[in-house]
């Protein structure tokens, strides 16, 4: 049987014609598209596109938020053997030029006026772009550019064309092969042009099926599609797995209504990057601070119990009868209503991925009874490489290799993956393909990690950032700066951390305190301060931060591989690291090398064992003027622990 996405669609339309395929909230009401309705729409769109001249093997760009009609056009393109390329809807016009020219795109389907304007703006630079269709006609009434049409008119034309050629659609779908290219996803490279990741029907459907089987997804499940469709994760959850498992995809009304829609839909399968879970938690905590004393007391008592027994309960471990009864009561009073308020009361499986998640954040959700788990994957692997099984979720691993996946480590500690879901290659970029995909079929992830005693994969850092300690007690031990920095940043009092240790005897860090969190902490202790610089240098604050650093050390000492990365000295910087000063990237990642140069005196002082160091730095203000801040910084030692050898 040749599995392709259009065939999966027709299968659902045949077996469950009246079942809900997608819902979209419009004019305040959730409007349902049934599987047969979807199939009909796809047929009309496909016939329309065929008539307009879309060829087999040709690429078609789709730009917009999660809209059923946009997903239908992707299916329509695939029905004709064409290849949809979803692009990020918030990309600026210039960023769309490369993908469109790289893939010789003539056809483009967009959501609304905003996207139409972008395409018209770059049209001169993309002369081959001849067909532009839009879904939402608002504001476009007076546009009369050649080749600009509404999707509605395309559907209409397709309807007529289908009537004249009733077999066309089926014939075209029959021509599709599972090894045909199904979609292309552009990944933003940190340097140079983005690369088009080519996936076939086979790679995507295989991974989607494995994931669906692992979590027992059925057509009863519901998801809310709210992340950009151009991101492979969203594409897997709201497209590939949708067609594989046949569940219902709900499209929110607009970006601003997602939290409301989440509550109304009550998804059973949910995905979010850590920052979204963090945002939800913060909003809960702020509202609890404003609640009355009785409610607040009840909340804190119940949460203390949840922290103690919730994770074990979630992991399926036995908890005492008394605790069990107490937890039930807490569930009735607090956890249940809280889950409901977050819109997560029906969640059976929730995933987080993309970046490291703080253990407190992770266990908060698990403790109130949400089955939160982690997964590992990337665009190149069609997402699913590792998954955490139910009852085995942990904050610091990303799970066990899932069905069909082989994992091994290269000599440099890089994770290599072999999987049926690997990319076919980068589009028109053999050099880049050869770099990541070796002839023996291993994909090089450029992530460093290892498999721990329980068989879970643990990600440490990007390979290029991993260093080695040199000399001293831990000579030659692995040093993973991001791993250490993340552990520090999980503390709410620490905003940024920069760790040094490569080719050094020991590890030292420079820290930024979180001004809001530490400021609040200081106010509650009647500790006066004049501003960031003053607060950062308070002895009390150094004690607070030392405590955090030593907790991280204790944690690292239990880690056989990374015990050498314990922090021996630290300092709190006198200014916040800022992208305007070039210390952070625009996506707020620390630029370690640049910081080491700029604060060279501090790094030397840390390693030189000095107790304090004067520093003056240039700063750029928001209005473009420059000034300077200076301070004498204290440097502090932190206690390190002898490594605890894990009983193997």
């Amino acid at each position: 049987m040749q599995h392709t996405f259009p065939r999966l669609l027709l299968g659902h339309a045949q077996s469950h014609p009246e079942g809900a395929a997608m819902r979209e909230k419009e004019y305040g009401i959730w409007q349902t598209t049934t599987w047969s309705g979807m199939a009909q729409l796809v047929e009309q769109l496909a016939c329309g596109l065929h008539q307009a001249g879309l060829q087999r093997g040709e690429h078609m760009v789709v730009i917009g938020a999660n809209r059923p009609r946009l997903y239908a056009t992707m299916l329509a393109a695939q029905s004709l053997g064409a290849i949809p390329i979803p692009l990020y809807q918030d990309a600026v016009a210039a960023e769309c030029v490369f993908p469109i020219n790289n893939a010789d795109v003539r056809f483009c389907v967009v959501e609304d006026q905003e996207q139409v304007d972008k395409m018209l703006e770059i049209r001169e630079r993309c002369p081959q772009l001849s067909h532009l269709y839009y879904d939402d006609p608002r504001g476009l009434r007076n546009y009369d550019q050649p080749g600009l049409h509404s999707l509605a008119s395309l559907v209409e034309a397709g309807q007529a064309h289908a009537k004249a050629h009733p077999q066309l659609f089926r014939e075209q779908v029959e021509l599709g092969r599972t090894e045909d290219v199904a979609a292309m996803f552009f990944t933003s490279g940190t340097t140079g042009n983005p690369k088009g990741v080519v996936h076939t029907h086979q790679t995507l459907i295989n991974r989607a099926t494995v994931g669906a089987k692992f979590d027992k997804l059925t057509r009863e499940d519901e998801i809310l599609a709210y992340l950009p469709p151009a991101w492979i994760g969203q594409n897997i959850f709201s497209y590939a797995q949708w067609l594989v498992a046949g569940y219902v995809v709900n499209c929110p009304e607009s970006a601003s209504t997602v939290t409301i829609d989440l509550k109304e839909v009550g998804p059973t399968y949910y995905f979010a990057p850590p920052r979204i879970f963090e945002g939800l938690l913060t909003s809960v905590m702020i509202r609890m601070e404003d609640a009355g004393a009785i409610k607040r007391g009840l909340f804190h008592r119940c949460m203390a119990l949840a922290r103690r027994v919730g994770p074990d309960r979630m992991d399926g471990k036995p908890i005492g009868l008394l605790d069990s009864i107490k937890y039930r009561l807490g569930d009735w009073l607090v956890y249940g209503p809280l889950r409901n308020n977050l819109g997560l009361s029906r969640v059976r499986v929730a995933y987080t991925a993309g970046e490291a998640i703080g253990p407190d954040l992770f266990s908060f959700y698990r403790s109130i009874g949400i089955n939160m788990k982690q997964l590992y994957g990337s665009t190149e692997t069609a997402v699913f490489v590792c998954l955490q099984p139910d009852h085995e979720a942990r904050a610091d691993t990303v799970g066990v290799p899932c069905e069909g996946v082989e994992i091994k480590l290269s000599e440099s500690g890089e994770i290599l993956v072999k999987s049926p879901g690997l990319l076919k290659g980068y589009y028109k970029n053999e050099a880049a393909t050869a770099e990541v995909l070796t002839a023996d079929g291993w994909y090089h992830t450029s992530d460093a990690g290892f498999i721990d005693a329980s068989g879970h994969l643990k990600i440490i850092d990007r390979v290029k950032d991993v260093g080695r300690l040199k000399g001293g007690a831990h000579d030659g031990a692995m040093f993973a700066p991001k791993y250490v920095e993340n552990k520090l940043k999980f503390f709410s009092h620490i905003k940024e951390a920069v760790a040094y240790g490569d080719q050094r005897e020991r590890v030292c860090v420079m820290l930024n305190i979180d001004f809001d969190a530490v400021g609040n902490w200081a106010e509650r202790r009647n500790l006066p301060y004049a501003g960031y610089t003053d607060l950062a240098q308070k002895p009390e604050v150094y004690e607070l931060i030392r405590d955090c650093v030593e907790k991280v050390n204790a944690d690292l000492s239990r880690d056989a591989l990374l015990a050498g990365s314990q922090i021996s000295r630290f300092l709190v910087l006198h200014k916040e690291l800022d992208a305007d000063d070039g210390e952070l990237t625009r996506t707020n990642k620390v630029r370690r090398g640049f910081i080491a140069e700029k604060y060279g005196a501090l790094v030397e002082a840390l390693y030189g064992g000095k107790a304090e160091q004067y520093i003056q730095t240039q700063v750029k203000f928001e209005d473009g003027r420059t000034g300077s801040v200076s301070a004498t910084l204290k440097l502090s030692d932190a206690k390190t622990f002898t490594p605890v050898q894990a009983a193997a």
Partner: protein
Amino acid sequence: MEPHSNMTQKKIGDVVLNVQNISLRFGGVKALTNISFDVREHEVRAIIGPNGAGKSSMLNCINGVYQPQEGSISFRGRTFRHMNSRQVAEMGIARTFQNLALFKGMSVIDNLMTGRNLRIKSGLLAQAFRNPFGIGGAQKEEEAHREFVEHIIDFLEIQAHRKTPVGQLPYGLQKRVDLGRALAMEPQVLLLDEPMAGMNLEEKQDMSRFILDVNDEFGTTIVLIEHDMGVVMDISDRVVVLDYGKKIGDGTPEEVRRNEEVISAYLGTSH
């Protein structure tokens, strides 16, 4: 962003509203003296002037809140000595208020539904005692009105605030709801009294966009009072300038900008 070139080719029609020789006095205070101007179908007509120039008084005369001592107002060929508020509303002229006139404790939806008041046909009793089967006039009618209101919510992009009490919304959004309430009347002419007062730059940009969209999508004629010269010059087709109750300028934004009298009165003059 630059407005698209083809956005400007809209059709401006005949005169719909004609204000002739209006004078309005409060006792000895002359609020308006012998003001005449016209408003054409589909245009955006601005009334500008310094504080106390009589802009709001002018709007209140059109709206029937004030009754001018002299002059007349014609609307679609019918001439009135003075207007009557209800009559004005029934003729299809809606307005928003400088200081907002919303029900703060009511939700956005309910506030917008009040804008449908004039169009609700079923009686109070029929609305109060609806049968549980969903049949009968009152319920069907409410559904139709609610649907209309939903289109306004969609248009103004306030879906996230449907059920929020208006008083809890930030000021810029309240202004948007006020515009929505006026739009719910399906007006032919929309009078906007300082729609951008007290807004930050981003809110002003949003509001300008909505005003132009209303004008474009529904073909609604718009008369607006505004302080912000930049906004006025950007979105208006023609501008009337008042100063101390007298008309000192009338024409396209470019003409008004070049008018010496306007420059000295409104933009200030060096002494």
